[in-house]
């Protein structure tokens, strides 16, 4: 909202420097966004709020400054040249919807000479960023931006039958607006009509036909008050936001309507107009003034200050409230109609705070009588999980929750995507059902921009529409690795990433989270190349997927490199109780390691070997690792060679070589029978 220094001076005697005035405006919350100095004036662009329609006119802003500085508001009277005729003789106003139009004021001005506005008026109009049109339209805007009371002017000769009807639109009615567009009206919209047809959409926009033209001589001035909700719904439906609708939907001052009509008429007299006798003012259900109780104790208690009762009275009186002291330091405040925002004690306390000055309120730490113990440590665990992934060299990304329905189709996640009713764009019109499409896009983006390796993860929600119209959101972890894992240096050759880089990270995650090691089972899934993916299981339950991205999918992104990805259901995983951490005594006695190399049928997967090794009925076996695995022509065809290092330890004594030899023999015979191994 643009405010001019000189315009404010119509209402108060100001003698501040432009900067001082800006400081004043900032203090009371009318934040100055820009200050523009012209030759004769200073124009402030100030921030206004949805609950303060009174500040959408210069008078309202002047009242705030007057209160802050202790200045009086100038009283202005609106003199007019009178016609012989009474307003009601010239126009017949009927309000058919008093709930949607609680007050309607009007005057007729005759004998006008429509033309360009005089310089003073043009300057006012230009200062607030509008284009001067003609003196009548400019006056309406001048009054609107003075009082925050929208004014509409009709060419009297265009009002058929001399009748103004405030009624709801009829089905099929249309209006060509002042902006030149044709709008279709619907029956819940309030219109200003004559005998036959709508002339204006009430409180939103006027019609072209009844608008002021150069040939207009007689004008009907409308200064009314309309129901905010109705105006808002109509404006939204028509896709229009006008200076009038902006004010009405926030709540115009019901008592500004008569003033607006008089002021408009008075200024129009400067252009030869003469005004009808007696203001038409239909206000069938006058509003009782609102009252609010105010306690000094509550003011000080909520703000943490000590204000003088005098200050309270002075400030609120300055703002137009009428205070009646009921008891000591307890008032009943009558709220002026222009302050639609003041309804409760807290609202009045804010007024005190604004004028007291937020900067004068002391700064104190918030006291606490007790602290709550952190309950679930979910966030902490997720952060720890991030750190494991950082350690594995994965960078974190964050993608939008939105997805492109065409891409979703391609991926076939198996979940039904949630659609947005009013998306920002068609490419963002559903919610993602998987984190992987986003990660793949990130990989492509980076491969196209010099990245030789992309190792990324995201922690975030995916969304799906479930049975019974349940809209579900679920926290997942997506991980992707592709390209070089490390570049060649003088010390080591370059390393390409692989499936096991990803699998290792996931295994470490489970360890960190305090769960048993996950198991992996082959699975076919639309994301992954056939035979190249596993499901990740904890105990018996699937908690994720891992595999090589399907080539068909990769091709859609022009992605040529193999990319491995995994998606873990964190919501599922984190609700499981981790194994409690328990300290284990440091071994007192040394252990012994033994290596075993054997050949085994190449068709047997490692998982099976591992299971057998874990099941070995031998004592003192602390751990085993496979340290070599190869398949060579020199070996028996169809076999594969494994080398396993076993590590044995007795907790209470040093193991004897002979004991370990016996155990190894036992292992060999066990494996020979269970896995048909042959020693190398």
């Amino acid at each position, binding site marked *: 909202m643009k405010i001019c220094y000189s315009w404010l001076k119509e209402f108060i005697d100001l003698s501040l420097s432009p900067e001082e005035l800006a400081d004043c405006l900032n*203090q*009371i*919350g009318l*934040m100055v966004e820009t200050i523009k100095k012209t030759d004769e004036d200073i124009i402030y662009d100030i921030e206004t*709020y*949805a*609950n303060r329609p009174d500040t959408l006119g210069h008078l309202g802003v002047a009242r705030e400054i007057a209160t802050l500085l202790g200045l009086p508001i100038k009283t202005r009277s609106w003199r007019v040249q009178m016609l012989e005729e009474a307003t009601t003789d010239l126009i017949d106003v009927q309000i058919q919807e008093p709930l949607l139009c609680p007050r309607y004021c009007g005057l007729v001005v005759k004998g006008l000479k429509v033309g360009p506005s005089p310089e003073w008026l043009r300057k006012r109009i230009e200062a607030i960023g509008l284009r001067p049109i003609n003196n009548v339209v400019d006056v309406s805007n001048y009054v609107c931006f003075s009082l925050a009371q929208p004014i509409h002017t009709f060419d009297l000769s265009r009002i058929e039958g001399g009748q103004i009807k405030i009624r709801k639109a009829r089905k099929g009615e249309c209006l060509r607006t002042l902006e030149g567009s044709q709008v279709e009206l619907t029956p819940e919209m309030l219109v200003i009509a004559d005998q036959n047809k709508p002339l204006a959409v009430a409180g939103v926009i006027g019609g072209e036909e009844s608008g002021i033209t150069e040939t207009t001589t007689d004008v009907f001035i409308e200064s009314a008050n309309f129901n905010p*909700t109705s105006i*808002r*719904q109509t404006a939204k439906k028509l896709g229009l936001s006008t200076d009038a609708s902006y004010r009405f939907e926030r709540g115009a001052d019901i008592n500004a309507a008569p003033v607006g009509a008089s002021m408009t008429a008075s200024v129009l007299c400067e252009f030869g107009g003469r005004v009808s006798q007696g203001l038409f003012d239909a206000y069938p259900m006058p509003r009782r003034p609102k009252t609010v109780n105010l306690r000094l104790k509550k003011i000080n*208690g*909520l*703000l*943490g*200050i000590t204000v003088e009762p005098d200050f309270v009275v002075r400030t609120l009186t300055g703002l137009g409230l009428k205070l009646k002291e009921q008891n000591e330091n307890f008032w009943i405040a009558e709220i002026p109609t222009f302050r639609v925002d003041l309804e*409760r004690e*807290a*609202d009045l*306390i*804010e007024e005190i705070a604004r004028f007291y000055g*937020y*900067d004068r*309120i*002391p*700064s*104190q*730490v*918030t*006291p*606490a*009588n*007790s602290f*709550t113990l952190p*309950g679930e440590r979910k*966030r902490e665990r997720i952060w720890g999980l*991030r750190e494991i992934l*950082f*350690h594995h*060299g*994965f*960078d*974190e*990304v964050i993608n*939008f*929750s*939105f997805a492109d329905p065409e891409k979703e189709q391609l991926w076939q996640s198996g979940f039904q995507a*949630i*659609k947005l*009713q*009013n998306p*920002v764009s068609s490419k963002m019109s559903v919610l993602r059902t998987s984190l992987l499409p986003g990660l793949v896009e990130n990989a492509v983006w*980076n491969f196209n921009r010099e*990245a030789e390796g*992309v*190792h990324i*993860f995201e922690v975030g929600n995916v*969304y799906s529409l479930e049975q019974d119209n349940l*809209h579900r*959101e679920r926290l997942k972890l997506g991980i992707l690795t592709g390209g070089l894992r490390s570049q060649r*240096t003088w010390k080591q050759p370059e390393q390409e990433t692989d499936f096991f880089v990803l699998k290792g990270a996931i295994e470490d995650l489970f360890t960190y989270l305090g769960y048993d090691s996950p198991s992996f089972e082959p699975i076919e899934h639309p994301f992954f190349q056939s035979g190249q993916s596993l499901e990740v299981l904890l105990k018996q339950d699937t908690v994720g997927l891992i595999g090589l991205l399907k080539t068909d999918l990769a091709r859609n992104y022009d992605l040529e490199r193999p990319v491995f990805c995994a998606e873990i259901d964190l919501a599922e995983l984190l609700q499981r109780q981790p194994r409690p951490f328990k300290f284990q005594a440091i071994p007192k006695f040394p252990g012994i390691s033994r290596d075993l190399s054997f050949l085994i049928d190449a068709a047997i997967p490692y998982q099976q070997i591992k299971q057998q090794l874990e099941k070995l009925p031998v004592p003192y076996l602390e751990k085993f690792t496979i340290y070599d695995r190869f398949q060579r022509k020199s070996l028996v065809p169809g076999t594969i060679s494994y080398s396993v290092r076993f590590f044995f330890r007795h907790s209470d004594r040093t193991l004897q070589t002979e004991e370990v030899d016996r155990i190894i023999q036992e292992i060999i015979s066990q494996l020979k029978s269970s896995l048909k191994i042959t020693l190398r």
Partner: protein
Amino acid sequence: MSTLQDKINNYRQLFFDRAAAVKESQQVEELRQLFLGRKKGYLTLLFEEFKNLSPEEKKTAGRVLNEFKTEIQSKLSELEKNFPVSGTITPIEDLTLPGRQLYWGAPHPITLFERKIENIFISMGFSVEEGPEIETDYYNFEALNFPPDHPARDSWDTLYINDKLLLRTHTSPVQIRVMEKKKPPLRIIIPGRVFRRETPDPTHLPMFYQVEGLVVDKGITFAHLKGTLEFFLKALFGEKIRLRFRPSFFPFTEPSAEVDIECIVCRGQNPECRVCGGSGWKEILGSGMVDPQVFKNVNIDPEIYSGWAFGLGIDRTAMFAFQIPEMRYFYENDLRFIRQFNRK
């Protein structure tokens, strides 16, 4: 025979002379090489000679040679004990070559910044709460004192799923959810993703991150709000940062305050400043005393309890703190951008 014995005697003399002169471990190794070296060690050569002797001669020579070898070996190991190891390690040729660096993954700047904020509040005894991203109109608006069809909703332009469900436009609905479940005193923060129907531009995107704070207790004042937020912003931006509290409007707080911080880019010195537009101030968060209507909506008596709340856009604050010119960088996930943040 005598020649061999003579040679041994000479070598023994030589060996023990040299052994006596040893001053560092490297000399021990040199001595070992001199006598036991695989090809040209004196003793190795003597054993070569031994091969050519007659079986008769071999008998004594073998014993003498082996005795000599044992003698040398035991002296060498004694010397090794006295002048330990380093001599056996190959010296590094060029210490100025680059070290082996480990690549440590980078956190996303939003996560990083959010954690920074969380930690400040956790240090003040706050706990962290979360809530759903798909919300109802009630929690997102009504319970927070946004009347239906009120222009106040315009600043929270909403993405709807259907007539009842929407994507939360702020983290404030979680305030309501927590207050419905837990009794005061409360001191919580709520970080999370929020959504607005915004056309993307350098400072607006349809998704971003917010953090919300809420304190509810007996006797909570506006002064407490000021003091705590001042502490928070100083912890985040440095002790010397200047702050400004000014009146504002939010449906769910009354009185409301917006907090500006001094522009850390120009400190108010550049009228053309790209960051603050020359005003010297940057809007950083919205706050206020919890509106009595909000308390009533969750059955907390505003005559007994009071509270303060704030909300801050993490993206914009991080942009300001790190001087990132474009908000979309956060969601493009260019690794040349992300990877800068493993240094923070």
